């Protein structure tokens, strides 16, 4: 119970003002301010309304008056003073009603019935743009199949509004230009930054020739695990070629890059060991870490001082178990890379082992295609190197490279997907082998030079349009957008304007840092890159207008 009687709420009071003034205005019959009403009854009523208005306003809280500063509260409060038979009559009130009230009415009405609440957005589009995939990550209910439906409803809304960036289809080989259809079957043709074929080897005649030869020699099927009879002699040649490229002699093949990462971590790490992993390392490594041990420590992206601190803390408590430190070489979402010399030294100082995933950089950058390792003179000096063929080597597959045959044999036996999954097909193996030859040849150098000319042109042009590219020059050009709605809308515009780009958002990137991941190829010409940059910039600008978004793209 209140200790003293409390005044009425502001809303109640504002409603009284609105009702009273509306009634008075009606009584005036919309009469222009020319002359005051002559009828004494009307005059009395008006004076009464003026008083009622003024008194209600006097009771409105200070809180409200200092907030809704566009309402002339003081002027309204003065109306409380009209005497019943004031000879001056309610002139000032009448004048207020005819001149000022329409504007004041809108302001008051907004306080009790805000216009913004009368929402007219397309519910489908709102639903599609509002949510994130993670919202559906843990559905409710015990029916495993039925509970997938809520997510599906959202996917359908995204598809109907053409903001679903996934599952597009190629209509032909993905060159520097590609023809695709989105998952509603609508076609588009555009400059293609959507394919991870950095040296454009998919179209290389020698690569296709190698594939055809292997198809003829061995057929399309490997017909077994590499531990049984899935490998051919091409597999051994490939292992040796890769060993030369990364400077580690003992190489094992995996059916995909993903399984190379997952298989390596789960093969080597026991439940009591530690995994210290870059927060942004690839999903195959994160999931491998989770599957292998509960002792997973994530460190801030690229922060080697933090690694040093974690290793120091772990070693102070635990001298018996192993520590695997895990990082990507070129990070595919941010286009940056760690200082590998420093990282490897920190690992050695704490008896920890370093694993580097060179999926994106091997072959596409660095002297002779040696990737980030070669750029930092670290070829052959990293404990463990793994990679994927799916970016530069024109095929599926992945590998683990180590310094000793013991590690290799162990990973083959205990790295699940090596033992328990069908081997790379002979065609894939032959393709990667030929690609590795090209990567290490003078032609490889020429292709990389062309690739980097296109990269520089693209980054330069995007920057020139005021857009922010993250990271350093590499085949991946991440164009930061931030807000998911903005990115999804820009992506929808881009589709029809001749640029194919992949938009990445949560869970690939953290919430609120959506971006376009532009993947450049050797086949892109610098002019093509500049043209694309102009189209992208216009689409982002139009999306901003469409959403009337004021956010720009600085990171902090």
């Amino acid at each position, binding site marked *: 119970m209140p200790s003293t009687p409390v005044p009425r709420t502001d809303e109640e009071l504002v409603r009284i003002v609105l009702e009273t003034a509306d009634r008075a205005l009606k009584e005036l019959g919309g009469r222009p301010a020319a002359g005051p009403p002559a009828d004494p009854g009307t005059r009395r009523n008006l004076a009464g309304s003026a008083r009622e208005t003024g008194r209600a306003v006097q009771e409105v809280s200070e809180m409200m008056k200092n907030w809704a*500063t566009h309402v002339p509260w003081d002027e309204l409060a003065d109306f409380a003073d009209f005497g019943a038979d004031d000879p001056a009559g309610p002139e000032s009130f009448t004048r207020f009603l005819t001149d000022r009230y329409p504007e004041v009415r809108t302001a008051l009405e907004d306080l009790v019935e805000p216009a*913004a609440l009368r929402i007219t957005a397309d519910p489908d589009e709102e639903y599609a743009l509002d949510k994130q995939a993670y*919202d559906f990550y843990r559905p*409710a209910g015990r029916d495993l199949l039925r509970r997938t439906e809520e997510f599906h409803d959202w996917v359908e809304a995204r598809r109907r509004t053409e903001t679903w960036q996934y599952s597009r289809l190629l209509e032909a080989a993905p060159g520097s230009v590609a023809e695709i259809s989105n998952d509603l079957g609508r076609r588009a043709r555009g400059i293609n930054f959507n394919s991870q074929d950095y040296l454009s080897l998919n179209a290389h005649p020698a690569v296709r020739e190698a594939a055809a030869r292997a198809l003829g020699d061995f057929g399309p099927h490997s017909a077994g695990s590499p531990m049984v009879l899935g490998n051919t002699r091409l597999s051994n040649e490939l292992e040796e070629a890769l060993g030369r490229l990364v400077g580690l002699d003992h190489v094992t093949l995996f059916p995909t890059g993903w399984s190379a990462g997952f298989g390596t971590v789960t093969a080597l790490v026991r439940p009591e060991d530690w995994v210290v992993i870059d927060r942004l390392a690839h999903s195959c490594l994160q999931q491998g870490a989770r599957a292998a041990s509960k002792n997973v420590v994530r460190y801030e992206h690229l922060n080697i001082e933090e690694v040093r601190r974690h290793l120091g803390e772990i070693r102070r408590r635990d001298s018996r178990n192993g520590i695997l430190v895990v990082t990507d070489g070129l990070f595919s979402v941010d286009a940056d890379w760690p200082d590998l010399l420093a990282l490897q030294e920190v690992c050695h100082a704490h008896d920890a082992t370093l694993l580097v995933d060179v999926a994106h950089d091997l072959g596409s950058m660095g002297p002779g295609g040696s990737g980030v390792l070669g750029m930092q003179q670290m070829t052959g000096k990293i404990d463990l190197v793994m990679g994927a063929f799916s970016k530069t080597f024109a095929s599926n597959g992945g590998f683990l490279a180590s310094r000793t045959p013991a590690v290799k044999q162990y990973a083959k036996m205990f790295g699940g997907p090596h033992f328990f999954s069908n081997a790379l097909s002979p065609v894939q193996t032959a393709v990667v082998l030929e690609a590795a030859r090209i990567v290490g040849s003078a032609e490889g150098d020429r292709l990389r030079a062309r690739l980097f000319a296109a990269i520089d042109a693209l980054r330069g042009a995007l920057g020139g349009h005021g857009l922010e590219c993250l990271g350093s020059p590499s085949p991946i050009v991440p164009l930061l957008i931030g807000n998911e709605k903005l990115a999804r809308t820009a992506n929808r515009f881009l589709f029809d304007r001749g640029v194919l780009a992949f938009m990445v958002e949560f869970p690939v990137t953290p919430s609120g840092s959506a971006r376009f991941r532009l993947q450049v190829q050797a086949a892109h010409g610098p002019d093509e890159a500049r043209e694309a940059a102009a189209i992208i910039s216009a689409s982002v600008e139009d999306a901003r207008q469409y959403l009337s978004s004021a956010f720009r793209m600085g990171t902090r």
Partner: protein
Amino acid sequence: MFDAIVVGARCAGSPTAMLLARGGHRVLLLERAQLPSDVLSTHFLWPHGMSYLNRWGLLEEVLRTTPSHTAVHLVNEGIALTGEVPEKLLRTHFEELHGDGGGVVTTHASVRRRVLDGILMDAAASAGADVRQGCTVDELIVEEDRVVGVRGRTRAGTRFEERARIVVGADGRNSFVARALGLAKFDERPRCTFAYWTYYSGFAPGGLQLHRRGRLAAAVVPTNFDQNMTLVWGPSEWASAFRSDVAGHFQQALSFVSPDLAEQVRSEGQQEERFYGTLDQAAYLRPLYGPGWVLVGDAESFKDQCTATGMTHAFRDAELAAAAIGSWLGGREPLDRALRSYEERRRSQNAAAYYDYACTLAEMRPLRHDELQLLAALRGNQEETDRYIATHADIAPVSEFFQASNLFLINDAARETSDQHAIFDGFAETSRSYLRNPFS
């Protein structure tokens, strides 16, 4: 002729004027109302808000009459979490935003505006700003497309005119400066909450309590005068039903969201003031600056009260804008470049992510199954609970907590299973029942 005229003397305006005056600049601070006085707000300050006060040397004075705490108690659908904002996250926050992580404190407080705003305005005056209350600005002086001063009238009806090198609009949500400039709102988010609150004496809730159930929420925090600010909120779609009986529905909402709190309020609480409320809380952004003008505080951007960050963000704007304007006035940087750095921080990726976070929360949809499981998984994980609280308050970036590998790790580290929480029994039906408007 002043260096700067600041219109509005509360959370955004007074600190802007104070910091500029401390920098040796000639500042005029104009305020329509008489202070000390209240303004519509539930006036909670998170630790970064308190840290600003501390950095400016004003915290001690505020704490002389205001209780403060560090513990934050959250109860979502019966899943209770207690934590506090770690100093390290605060330091990082200030380093990244202002390039200086000094002076942070981990306490929070609820400060009545008639207490706080007076202290802020007096600090501007002590710093040397010319402070004039009861002065309403009703015209901007524009010459050659540039704002060069203001005109207005005093309470007594006298007109005045003043000129300055720059005019700062710190005049709140219904900003006169923004309206006079005809500035459009961007990124409007009409879905928001309705909020009703009042003040009770007679019990001690021990720091901030935030309760959430279905589409309703309640908060209680100790504030000045031995009272507790006690607040309920819900989706604006339910507002008109709610206000048909504010006092009755207030109790009903409280009982629904937290029977214990409702019981405490009923049996021990003395209501000291009327119910205050508003439903006009749609979020927006406005342009930040133009020729001769800058906006700070609610004038430049507003978010729903549900995360209680408006005052702290007004402080942030004041520090950013004063640094930018000061660096121009001091001849260290051209104006445009200085203000662009203000804009970069205010319209950054982190700011956009938080805007989305707060606006989504303001829709007051029932908590989803995955959100509740995440909250359950946080129990016993103090470090991540604290980071969650810091993220909610816009101290740690949304993108660091809501990051796939982080959420996986939280799930993996979970100590409790869903059978420990009643909400997971018959979740789908409960969730559906929450969609019904209980006030109609």
